[in-house]
């Protein structure tokens, strides 16, 4: 009744690699710029 789970670890590793690639591309800085500013759309007046 049991099967070996290879998909979960592969997706986990793939996700970590993608996230690190994004950080190296400067996306964390881009996220910071968005998140540190007031988002008028988010509060419903933009």
């Amino acid at each position, binding site marked *: *009744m*049991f*099967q*070996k*789970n290879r*998909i*979960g*670890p592969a*997706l*986990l590793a*793939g*996700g*970590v*690699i*993608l*996230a*690190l*690639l*994004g*950080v190296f*591309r400067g*996306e*964390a*800085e*881009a*996220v*910071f710029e*968005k*998140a*540190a*500013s*007031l*988002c*008028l*759309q*988010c*509060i*419903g*007046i*933009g």
Partner: protein
Amino acid sequence: MRRRLVQAVSTFIANANLPGFIEGRLYQGRLKSVCVPFLNCYSCPGALGACPVGSFQSLAAGFSRSVSLYVFGFLTAVGAAGGRFVCGWLCPFGFLQELLHRLSPRRLALPRFLELLKYPVLVLTVLLPFFWRDAVGLAEPYYCKYICPAGTLEAGLPLVGQRAELAALIGPLFWFKVSILAVLTTAAVFVWRPFCRTLCPLGAFYSLFNRVSLWQLRVDRSRCTSCGACARRCPAGLDPYRDPNPAACVRCLECTQVCPTEALTFGTGAKTPAFTPFTKEA
């Protein structure tokens, strides 16, 4: 009880910029470059991190139409690790809905087809910022703008209540979003986590991983007596002993607490359960 504590601590840590609530100002330190794994508006005065849905949409909405590998990879890693575990244990808006649900002894079931709504919401959340653009070529974070009740609760109401220049800008859109929040919070009193189950794009995304995530619910068939205690306890109305890892499960793990034979466990390892329906052996 332990889960409630974890949810409360998670809610507090995610929104620990307490002076922000008093001053009506956002936290602007470097932690804001770090995504939290759940829906938590980054325009909330208390928010220390970035909402992944808002971040993904905002970056996609720019001129460059960026697909954020950082956000997508992060969410994929979190989902691959535990599926919707984040929903059940860490999400502040899920926590709020559960607290509201404790107010009423009258519990209503959610029609199953409504749970499918969150998948078109996910698709539109991801795709619209890339394709729905104005004459200048810019898009907007449409989910945040038109639906997100967490943003209305955590950012809209506190900021509009404190800053007169924002209150002066209130229009029909604001009241539309407040209405969505009011409907969902009222529904949460009678239905268990209605927002998470019908409209949350993040919950929809994580649900895609429930069957393949590293951490899984397991049923030890040799111990299970098919008593049905887990199904009676499941707040989402699922049958963990028949199918322990469906997309609808937010992994609150309450089923593991009531199993009299400890046949249900949540964990990782080299092996995970096969997804065959339970059949009682003769």
